[in-house]
């Protein structure tokens, strides 16, 4: 049995991976992106925990019952839910290589997302106008931090969506763009999952208190 000897460091064994095989570009992107989403999930968990601890401290200020309009929250929830299903349709048309339809569904998703952000900002503006600012009480600080962080994520998703629509317009549904659209799909649906926690724990349980 012959042993390959490294000429510079004689006597030391040479190691290499026997089963190494080439990976296509981006083969681990979806797992990596999933792990990013899980780290995002931890951020929201901490914000939910903060809201859970501070959510009852009104400092003689307004309580959830005085501030929240559940009809508006229901409309907002439906906006996000509709944007989830339209993004699903965008992914289905993407698989069928229909560029125009994919772009149309992405645009509709963006409009629903924009409506969601618009309604949320209207709600915030209304609350601040009534004196329920983040500085007013611990409850309001925690509320604006949690719901605002979610809104910020949705806004970043919207910027990403427009960027990808330009990319698809320019280069078509190439492999890289499909991968990017798949990542944004996970991001968008994940934000909908976080919103389930927000409307349940912040709005519904807040009004119940």
């Amino acid at each position: 049995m012959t042993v390959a000897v490294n000429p510079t460091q004689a006597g030391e064994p040479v190691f290499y991976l026997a089963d190494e095989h080439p990976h296509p570009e981006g083969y681990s992107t979806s797992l990596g992106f999933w792990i990013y989403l899980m780290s995002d999930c931890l951020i929201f968990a901490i914000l939910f925990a903060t809201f859970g601890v501070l959510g009852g401290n009104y400092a003689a200020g307004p309580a959830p019952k005085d501030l929240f309009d559940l009809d508006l929250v229901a409309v907002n929830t439906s906006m996000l839910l509709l944007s989830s299903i339209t993004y699903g349709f965008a992914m289905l048309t993407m698989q069928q290589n229909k560029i125009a339809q994919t772009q149309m569904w992405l645009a509709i998703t963006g409009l629903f997302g924009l409506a969601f952000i618009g309604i949320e900002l209207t709600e915030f503006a209304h609350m601040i106008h009534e004196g329920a600012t983040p500085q007013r009480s611990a409850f309001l600080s925690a509320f604006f931090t949690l719901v605002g962080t979610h809104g910020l994520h949705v806004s970043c998703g919207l910027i990403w969506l427009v960027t990808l629509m330009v990319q698809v317009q320019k280069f078509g549904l190439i492999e890289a763009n499909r991968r990017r659209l798949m990542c944004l799909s996970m991001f968008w649906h994940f934000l909908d999952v976080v919103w389930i926690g927000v409307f349940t724990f912040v709005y519904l349980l807040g009004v119940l208190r």
Partner: protein
Amino acid sequence: MNTDTHTAHADDHHHGDSYAHGSFSTYMLGFVLSVVLTAIPFWLVMSGALPSKQITALVIMAFAVVQIVVHMIYFLHMNTTSENGWSMMALIFTIVMVVIALSGSLWVMNHLNSNMMPMHQMTGMK
């Protein structure tokens, strides 16, 4: 022998098609389920249909958990086989961390609050 193991190893990888996809029917099923699972808790709180607030709170929290699972399966296409099970491992790890962070914070801070001496007791202690 080496070539045999190599081909066997290459076969159980499916590169390039690792993205989990849904179909029109699974997306629609997920959407209809989430609409129902959203509408019921909103209706329960807005109408006050249940007699006690505690029961309503528990029911809407149960609905939230079910809806999160529905979203995970039908929209995020979670299953135990995607990415050779690593996405499920990451999810389970995250859920453990979330449960520790949430229940730990609420438990500790609740005890802290209840162990603080209220002002009305202090005034009676002169």
